[in-house]
C-alpha cells in the first residue's frame, strides 16, 4: 500500500460563470521514503494540489470537488478538522514557498518549534526546548542554543526556511510536502536546503512531495516525477525514464527552454504561445494550441494516458519516440 495515494483529484474555483475545475483527474502515489516531484509552470495547479492534500482549501476560493486522497489507507478528504489535526504536523507536514512570511513574526523561533511539538507530544516546556535546539542543530543552524531565542526577522531567508523545515520535521512525519521550498532563495542557499532535505530524508525515512517549477531541482532530487499542465498530469514516470526519453511535447518544451550554460545564446528557447486562461474551455488536448506537432485529432479528443515503458505514462496522441533524448 502506498503511503499517499491521490486518485482522480479534482479542484474547482468559484467564478462568475460557475465553478471551474482547475485541477482535473490528478492521480499519483508516493511510497514510503519515496520522493515525487510535481513540475509545472505557474498556475498549473501544483500548489492547489498540495494544499488540497493538506486540507488547506477552505472553500472560500477553491475547494476539492472530486477524487480521493488516502494517507496510509485513511481517506483524508472527508475528515473533520478535529480528526485531521491529529495527522497534520504529526504524520504529514508541509513547508512553504515564502520563508519570509511562513513564520509568525511575534514569536521566537524556538517557541514556534516547541509549539509544533507540544501540539502532538506531551512534552514539558524544558524538554520541548531541548528538542527544539536539537532540531535546529539537525537543520544545521549554527549556534542553535542562541538562535532559538531569535525572532524571525533576525534571521536570514535561508535560516528561516531551515526553521520551517525544523518545525515540519519536529514530530518525525512520514510525509513532507515541500511547496517550492527554494524558489525564494539564492541558488547557493537553494542547494543547501535541497541537500538538507535529502539528508533528513535519509536519516528519518520520510517520503517527500516536492513541488517545483525547476526541472533541474526535480531531476536531481526525485525518483518519481509528474509533469502538470493546466490542471492535468501530462507525463509521469520514474525520473530517469522521463528525463532520458521525454514523451510529451510540453515536457520537451520545458527542457528545451533551460538555457545552456556551455555556450552563449542570443534568443532563449521558449514554448510558443501562452497558457489559455482557465476560464477558457479548451476542447481536446489542453496543450494543442501551443504544441508544434498538434494535428486534427488533438483539437477534438483529449488523450488518455498511454504507457511508454514500465511506469512511464504520457497523455499525448503522438507521444515522442522512446529514444528522443532532450537536447
Amino acid at each position, binding site marked *: 500500500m502506498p503511503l499517499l495515494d491521490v486518485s482522480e483529484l479534482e479542484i474547482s474555483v468559484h467564478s462568475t460563470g460557475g465553478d471551474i475545475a482547475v485541477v482535473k483527474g490528478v492521480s499519483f502515489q508516493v511510497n514510503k521514503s519515496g520522493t515525487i516531484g510535481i513540475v509545472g509552470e505557474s498556475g498549473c495547479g501544483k500548489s492547489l494540489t498540495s*494544499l488540497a492534500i*493538506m486540507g*488547506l482549501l477552505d472553500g*472560500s476560493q477553491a475547494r476539492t470537488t472530486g477524487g480521493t486522497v488516502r494517507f496510509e489507507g485513511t481517506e483524508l478528504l472527508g475528515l473533520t*478538522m*478535529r480528526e485531521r*489535526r*491529529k*495527522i*497534520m*504536523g*504529526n504524520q504529514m*507536514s*508541509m513547508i*512553504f*514557498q*515564502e520563508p519570509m*512570511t*511562513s*513564520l*509568525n*513574526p*511575534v*514569536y521566537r523561533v524556538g517557541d514556534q518549534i516547541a*509549539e*509544533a511539538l507540544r*501540539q*502532538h507530544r506531551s512534552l514539558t516546556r524544558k524538554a520541548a526546548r531541548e528538542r527544539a535546539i536539537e532540531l535546529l542543530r539537525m537543520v544545521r543552524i549554527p549556534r542553535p542554543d542562541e538562535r532559538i531565542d*531569535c525572532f524571525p*526577522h*533576525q*534571521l*536570514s531567508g535561508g*535560516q528561516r526556511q531551515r526553521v*520551517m523545515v525544523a*518545525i*515540519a520535521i*519536529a514530530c518525525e512525519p512520514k510525509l513532507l510536502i515541500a511547496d517550492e521550498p527554494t524558489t525564494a532563495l539564492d541558488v547557493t542557499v537553494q542547494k543547501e536546503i535541497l541537500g538538507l532535505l535529502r539528508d533528513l530524508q535519509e536519516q528519518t525515512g520520510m517520503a517527500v512531495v516536492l513541488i517545483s517549477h525547476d526541472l533541474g531541482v526535480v531531476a536531481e532530487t526525485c525518483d518519481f516525477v509528474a509533469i502538470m499542465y493546466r490542471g492535468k498530469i501530462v507525463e509521469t514516470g520514474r525520473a530517469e525514464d522521463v528525463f532520458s526519453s521525454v514523451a510529451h511535447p510540453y515536457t520537451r518544451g520545458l527542457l528545451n527552454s533551460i538555457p545552456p550554460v556551455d555556450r552563449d545564446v542570443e534568443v532563449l528557447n521558449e514554448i510558443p504561445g501562452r497558457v489559455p486562461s482557465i476560464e477558457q474551455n479548451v476542447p481536446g488536448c489542453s496543450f494543442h494550441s501551443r504544441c508544434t506537432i498538434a494535428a486534427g485529432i488533438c483539437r477534438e479528443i483529449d488523450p488518455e494516458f498511454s504507457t511508454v515503458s514500465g511506469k512511464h505514462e504520457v497523455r499525448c496522441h503522438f507521444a515522442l519516440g522512446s529514444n528522443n533524448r532532450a537536447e
Partner: protein
Amino acid sequence: MTLLGSIGSAVFGRWLATTGLIWLALVAISAVAAPLIAPFDPLEINPIERLSEPAPPYLFGTDHFGRDTFSRAVYGARMASIIGCGSVLVALFAGGLCGMLSAYFPQLGHVLMRVVDVLMAFPALLLALVLMTLLERSVINTVIVIGIVYAATTARILYGMTLKLKGEVFVDAAICTGAGHSSVLLRHIFPNLISPLLVQASFVFAFSQLQAAALDFLGLGLPPEVPSWGNMLAEERIYITRAPWLLIFPGALIILTVFSLNLVGDAIRDAIDPRFRGDIAGV
C-alpha cells in the same frame, strides 16, 4: 528591541509626546489621589462664596453654588479616567472580538459586519445620543454607549487586519502543524493585533473624552451631580460672561487631555510601525 522599549523610546524621543505623557500622568495621579489633592469636597455647597474669582483658597474660583472649581476639576479627572478606560475596554473587547471572528468565519462576518456598517452609518454623536435617550443617565451607561459607538470602528479596523493575517502563510503553516481554530485565532493571529489595538486604544480614549463631554453638555451623559469636565461646562455655560473661568478651566482640561492622548497615540503608532522597527541581524 522589545515592543515596550520601542514605544518608550518613541514617546520620550519627542518633547511634545513626552509633555503629553507627563500631562496624562498628572491626570492619572489626580484621578487616583483625588481626595488627597482636592482641598474641598467637590459637592459641598457654599452660597456665600458663589462665583468667586480664582484666588486662594479657590484656585480656579467657585461656581454658582459656591463649589470649589479646582476640587471639581480634580474629581473630574477621576471621571475622565473611568469613562476613558471603560470605553476603551468595551470598544476594544466588543469591537475586537466582532472584527476578529467576522474575518475568521466569513459566514458570521456577513451578518456581523452588516450590523457594524449600520452602526457606522450614524454620526458618532448622533448614535450616542440615540442610545443614551433609551438608557438612564449613569456612569456605566455612558461607558457602554461610548464603548459601543467606538466598537464599530474598532471592529472595522480589526476585521481588515485579521483578514490580511488570515491569508498569511504562517497561519497556513500553523494549521499544518495541527493547530485548531481557537489556537490559530488566539495564539497566531491575536498577538499580531496587539500593536494596532494599542494605537486604537489611545484614540478611542481621546475620542471618548470628547464624546463624554459632548453628551454631558447636552445633558445626556453623566448624572448632573457628578463632577465631570463636561458637566461643569454644561452647568456653568450661562455664566460665561460673568465668570468665564468656570468654563475656561474645564474646557482647557479637556483640550489638553485629548491633545496629549493624540500625541502619545501618534508616538505609539510610529513606534510599532514595522518600517521603523529595523534591527535585522544579517547572518
